[in-house]
């Protein structure tokens, strides 16, 4: 640790905290806390982007950092909190696997991601190449979060967390994506959240709940039979 400059140590620390937050999201049941953790993740990304911009002198990274701050730390969490209040979904029901099992799966995923990333890190040329493994791990962990949840809101948070991981991975491997790509991705994420918000209202109206296993009732075999409560569609 002696020869490593301080800002790189800070970057490593940000990476580790990012991983810790992904794990915390895996184990969380309260949706409000999930969104707050997402906001903290965004803040960490902002700090890391700033550090990297200062270290490498690439000015587009400052713009990227500002975009991250505006979108991921301020706007999206505010939007999600508004959705939570209007839909009144505060708690997630029991996830597919119990907490210990989920954490164990998470650990296996992390080992897999780290071992995958070791040869890639050897090829990359950036100073932060050792955190590629963490980025891959964050992406995979968010995927697991999405799989093991039953409420739609938690799955959206998992999706956004995956995008955070992708962003961090791009930063560690190639010092950020071209500005066009980044703007495009940010716009896509924003539109996705807005569209998903509309969907949630529809789902809630149809099933009176945001529990996604109700969607299984829309299978073909079920749709052919008349609904018992008379609500035909």
């Amino acid at each position, binding site marked *: *640790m*002696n020869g*490593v400059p301080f800002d790189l*140590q*800070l970057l*490593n*620390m940000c*990476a*580790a*905290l990012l*991983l*810790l937050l992904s*794990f915390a999201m895996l*184990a969380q049941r309260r949706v409000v806390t999930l969104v707050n953790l997402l906001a903290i993740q965004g803040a960490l990304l902002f700090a890391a982007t700033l550090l990297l911009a200062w270290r490498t002198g690439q000015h587009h990274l400052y713009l990227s950092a500002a975009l991250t701050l505006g979108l991921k730390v301020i706007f999206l969490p505010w939007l999600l909190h508004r959705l939570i209040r209007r839909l009144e979904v505060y708690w997630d029901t029991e996830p597919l696997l*119990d*907490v*210990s099992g989920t*954490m*164990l799966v*998470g*650990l296996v995923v*992390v*080992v897999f991601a*780290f071992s995958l*990333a*070791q040869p890639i890190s050897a090829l990359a040329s950036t100073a932060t190449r*050792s*955190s590629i*493994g*963490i980025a891959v791990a964050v992406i995979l962990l968010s995927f697991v979060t999405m799989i093991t949840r039953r409420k739609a809101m938690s799955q959206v948070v998992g999706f956004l967390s995956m995008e955070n991981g992708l962003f961090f991975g791009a930063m560690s491997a190639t010092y950020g994506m071209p500005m066009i790509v980044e703007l495009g991705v940010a716009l896509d994420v924003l539109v996705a959240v807005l569209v998903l918000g509309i969907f949630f209202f529809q789902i809630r109206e149809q099933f009176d709940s945001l529990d996604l296993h109700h969607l299984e009732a829309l299978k073909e075999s079920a749709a052919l039979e008349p609904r018992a409560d008379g609500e035909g569609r």
Partner: protein
Amino acid sequence: MRPIDLLTQILEVIAALAAAPLFLGWVNQCRAWLQNRRPPSLWLPYLGIRKLFHKDAVIAANASALFRLAPYVVFGAMVVAAAIIPSMGTGLPFTTAADAIALVGLLATARVFQSLAAMDVGTAFGTLGARREMMVGFLAEPALLTIIFVASLISATTALPEITENLATQHLGLYPSLAFTAVAFTMVLLAENARIPIDNPATHLELTMIHEAMLLEYSARHLALMEWAAALKLFNYACIGFALFIPWGVSTGAGGPAALALSIPLLAVKLALAGVALALIETVSAKVRVFRAPEFLATAFLLAMLGLLVHLLLGA
């Protein structure tokens, strides 16, 4: 072995013995302040122990010699453990006899004897407490060992003073793996010392007790020794935390009497802050149900393993 090292060793043990009840009293005071109650006296644990020593020992009719022996063994194990932890200085001669793994082993010895003593009288509460204590222990001990393992990998040794010296004298560095293990260590500390969220140290309901249930049958001098040993355990755990994560201020290998004299008030400051932090954590958390305690500890274990993986990946 320099005379200053011998002095450090003896001073550490005496400080542990003397200051452990004070630390406990300080934590209780902070808790009372946070809960808007009038705090008890800072010296209350001392008065309690003294009062207990004067009383007659009332022992269950079917208690065996193991029951009477256990408090002494538990107390002895805690005192010897205090001699291994570098709270004031790192030049401790006794630590050539026992390293960090032996320290964990000593804590396990205390736990096993406590559980056996609880099972000795054969009441429902004692055996229930023993079962729960061993359940907490069998998940917390590997987590603690993994945490020490991570620190050992960073410092290439398992002797605790060497680890402390290594971490304290190096260029100030942020070790992400230590961040993970710090969180895991806090969780282990809460679990092993029977604090909220695992156990309520002030509870009277036998069905919810973990640590207290093992002390139900003890009275007088035996209870005094067990209470003192519990205070020592909390003190030891706090000092292990300082040695691993906040090692600055400890008198390192080349330090003389001045460094030793400086380390004592620094230790007091660290303990005071730790007490406030502990009281804060206890006040904002709620006690989890007993069958969720393994989840809590499994999280700590997995965090420690994550810390190990992060160390192996990042080299830090």
